[in-house]
């Protein structure tokens, strides 16, 4: 996340805002599959964003993508009928509400006055600060390891060692793409571009979910790459953390 530039942050904010609206609309109308629909839309938006060249990454274009997706209200309309809520569930809902109200009353009349009568525990506040820091550090370490793995894998591809790039790829990729298929795809994509002249990390994002992929630990990395025959290319590469603790590439895409 540390390499995300200002424009990408704008996009992420807009994307999340839109996804949140969809989630709210679908949840309000009691639709099933809310999570699945939101993830599918997220994947679609990410692809649209990936199609933009660095010059096209403007606020106007981001808004245009969101507009083309359609208003959130349409998602509920197209998702179909509301789920019927059986009478039993309504009764249980009422019981739960009564229980929550009673709990709030107890907290308001007994617990809060007790807390207010004590001095604030400053050590506890300090602990909260120090507990959140290592988490961020762990993510950063993971991103750094994933970038190293991505660079090593890209070097194999740069050197035309396509067979080796397959054997070094993540098991998830190897399960669906044969060695021959990967070799053919890489040759078709990379040979016309010529040698790599420069490559630097444009952004990197740690995530535990990716559309269409099992939950896991992934880092989506974008490299700004200059090839002999294509100056402004963007390579998107997605290493994933495998059970043996190694980061291996599960996806690669050049634009």
């Amino acid at each position, binding site marked *: 996340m540390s390499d995300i530039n200002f424009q990408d942050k704008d996009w992420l904010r807009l994307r999340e805002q839109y996804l949140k609206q*969809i989630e709210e609309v*679908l949840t309000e109308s009691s*639709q*099933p*599959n809310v999570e*699945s*629909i939101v993830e*599918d*839309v997220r*994947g*679609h938006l*990410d*692809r*649209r964003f*990936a199609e933009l060249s660095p010059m096209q990454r403007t606020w106007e274009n981001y808004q245009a993508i969101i507009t*083309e*997706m*359609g*208003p959130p209200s*349409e*998602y*509920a*309309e*197209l*998702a*179909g009928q509301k789920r019927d809520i059986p009478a039993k569930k309504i009764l249980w809902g009422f019981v739960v509400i009564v229980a929550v109200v009673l709990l709030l009353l107890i907290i308001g009349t007994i617990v809060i006055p007790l807390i207010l009568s004590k001095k604030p525990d400053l050590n506890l506040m300090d602990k909260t600060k120090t507990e959140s820091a290592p988490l961020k550090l762990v993510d950063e370490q993971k991103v750094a390891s994933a970038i190293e793995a991505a660079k090593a894998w890209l070097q194999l591809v740069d050197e035309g060692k396509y067979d080796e790039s397959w054997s070094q790829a993540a098991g*998830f*990729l190897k*399960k*669906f*793409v044969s060695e021959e*298929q*990967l070799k053919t*795809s*890489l040759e078709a*994509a990379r040979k016309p571009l010529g040698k790599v002249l420069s490559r630097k990390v444009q952004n990197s994002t740690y995530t535990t979910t*990716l*559309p*269409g*992929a*099992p939950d896991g630990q992934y880092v*989506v990395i974008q490299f700004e790459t200059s090839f002999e025959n294509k100056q402004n290319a963007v390579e*998107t590469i*997605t290493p994933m953390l495998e059970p043996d603790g190694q980061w291996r590439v*599960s*996806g*690669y*895409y*050049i634009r």
Partner: protein
Amino acid sequence: MMNLENWQTQLRKGLLDIVVLNLLKRGPSHGYEMVQTMKRIEGLQIREGNIYPVLARLETDGLVTSYSQPSTDGPPRKYFKLTESGQQALEDMNNHWDLLLESIRQIRKGA
């Protein structure tokens, strides 16, 4: 006065099920690909997000199933394919659609 654009939009949305199922009859596909295909067909240009709630509903109804497949040009993709009951439903829908078209044609001829 009638709002033609509004009518067209509603009609398009109403026909999304049959359009999506017919696209999947050609073979498994993913949402993004189906949207791109529809964009190229006159009269079928939908808002891009519209397809996802439709696919989710068709999957809940058992007419399509989904599976993920790694892609060499990006993150893994979620592919959808017709189920057996989806194929049967599509056949019924297509027959009904043909019937509707024929009925409208007859009315327009003044029969």
